[in-house]
């Protein structure tokens, strides 16, 4: 992956400018909607570290997302606001630890096993929250009061204001993009990609593959925790469905739509998918049927995501498309 050229950088700055200007021009409903979409984009980007850069198709990502939401719900006092500055690190730590433990087991497997085992462990967490009473069982729990950002009793930001919340989400999002870009370009990220493209060769070069992948899996789970915390704070409600594997698969769809080889691609994918769902829901009763068919169509027609349309319009180098090939061959091998 080459350094971003000027055009890409300008494009990024333009997008950020639009994102900052957006809440001043749209209604509160759409500010909320975009905050939700950006949170899902954050979630999809975190998954892509494992799927796109690590070459591992994980189906338990929603479990780490939902777990952090439950941590917030359980830590929130009933009639008082939880402090974001203390509960957010705890939530991220819980998701990261869960990812570390599950990762240590599932990364012993390859290929299709990995998919099945991640699915199974994700469902284990789902059933844990679904079947046990302390977290509200299948009904879930509501978070009555949004967490607050306060230092020594003085409130710094009022998260109850839709616009403030949106900007906090946007701030975290920019942070996550910066972090992931740094990780992907670091020697660690390159070693991870090497293991994806040719595991045997990377191993013979002396890369500690298991440790690399476990680190990526843990980091990805922790970032999913950040997204889950924000989502729970926004909706004021957590339910087991948040951890379910349909959610995991939906995030994977976002990753595929956005394209696997870039940091921000999945963010685009999330915006496309959530936007599409919004339109379908408004117009159709059986919108899931159409969504399913669209997903099937995307898988068949656009294996490299909307980037394929993108590159036709923006004229990206054909070399980019060629980069996708080795992953398919590797996956087939397993």
């Amino acid at each position, binding site marked *: 992956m080459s350094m971003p050229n000027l055009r890409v950088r300008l494009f990024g700055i333009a997008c950020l400018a639009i994102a900052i200007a957006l809440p001043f021009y749209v209604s509160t409903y759409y500010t909320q909607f975009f905050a939700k979409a950006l949170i899902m984009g954050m979630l999809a980007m975190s998954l892509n570290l494992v799927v796109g850069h690590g070459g591992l198709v994980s189906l338990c990502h929603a479990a780490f997302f939902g777990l952090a939401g439950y941590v917030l719900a359980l830590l929130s006092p009933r009639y008082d606001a939880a402090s974001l500055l203390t509960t957010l690190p705890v939530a991220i730590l819980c998701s990261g630890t869960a990812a570390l433990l599950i990762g240590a087991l599932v990364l012993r497997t390859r290929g299709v096993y990995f998919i099945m085992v991640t699915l199974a462990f994700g469902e284990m967490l789902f059933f*844990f929250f679904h079947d046990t009473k302390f977290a509200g069982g299948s009904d879930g729990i509501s978070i009555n009061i949004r967490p607050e950002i306060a230092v020594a009793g003085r409130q710094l930001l009022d998260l109850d204001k839709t616009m403030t919340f949106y900007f906090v989400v946007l701030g975290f999002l920019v942070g996550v993009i910066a972090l992931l870009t740094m990780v992907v370009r670091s020697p660690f990220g390159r070693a991870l990609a090497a293991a994806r493209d040719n595991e045997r060769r990377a191993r013979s070069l002396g890369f500690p593959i298991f440790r690399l992948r476990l680190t990526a899996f843990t980091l990805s789970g922790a970032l999913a925790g950040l997204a889950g915390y924000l989502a729970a704070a926004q909706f004021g409600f957590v339910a087991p469905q948040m951890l379910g*594997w349909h959610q995991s698969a939906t995030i994977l769809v976002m990753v595929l739509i956005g394209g696997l080889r870039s940091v921000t691609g999945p963010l685009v994918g999330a915006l496309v998918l959530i936007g599409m769902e919004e339109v379908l829901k408004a117009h159709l009763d*059986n919108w899931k049927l159409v969504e399913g068919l669209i997903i099937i169509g995307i898988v068949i027609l656009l294996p490299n995501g909307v980037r394929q349309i993108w590159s036709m319009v923006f004229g990206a180098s054909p070399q980019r498309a060629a980069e996708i090939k080795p992953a398919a061959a590797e996956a087939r091998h397993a």
Partner: protein
Amino acid sequence: MDFITLGVQLLNAVQYGAVLFLVASGLTLVFGILGVINLAHGAFYMLGAYLAYWITLMTGSFVVALLGGVLVAFVVGILLETVFVRLLYGRDHLAQVLLSFGLILVIDEIRQVLFGKDVHAVAPPAWLSGSIQLTDNLSYPVYRLAICVFCLMAALAIFFVIARTKIGMIVRAGSENREMARVLGIKFDRVNRYVFAAGIALAALGGILIAPISTVFPGMGDGMLILSFVVVVLGGIGSVGGAAVGALLIGLTDTFGKVFFPSVSSILIYVLMAVVLLWRPSGILGRQDA
């Protein structure tokens, strides 16, 4: 716990494991031969149960439902292979996962349109609806015994087909070394189609058989999909024998887990899976070269 109660639980475990085996063997066959991971497998289990409900309602005969449901599933399987699944051969796992996820959404909505989302019960056929009196206050339903026998016969038939017939030979050759089998003149286009359809039919068969002893509800496919995956991971993917071992292990763990450790029973099978992963990452009967 006395001897008879233990025996009843053992029967339950075997019956549960037997149905699991039918569904999971379909999944493992499809992966072994086609190299395609099909997340929509559970959806066909659910569809089978709804077909059993609907056909029984229409014709009043569970046997017709059994035959009809399997036939419908087989035909649907052939159609799906022809239209969608064939596009997945040679594609990466991500494409397979997402295409079958799309299929789940489509199948769920079609079920919604055709049958609604209500929970239903299906009556077993009259001649199997009695129960055997074991002691004064303990009886065992004949239908559950019939499932055991039926699944055992089906399992034997599957093993016979795979081990002793020409079709089975092609299937084994295909999972062992596909290129070589192709060079020897085997046309996998047709084999793929029928294996996929058979796999789907097995999932539906499981759903049909389970319908009279459980309720028919929209989310039933999800649970079964996860369980089949655990079975396949335990036994080793592509191995029908492994599926049998895995299914029996799950049946025993789940049933006796509910009896002896009711509070943690839902987690037990995952603990079992974790142990097997640590011990043999490619499954109990899987090839250990991965």
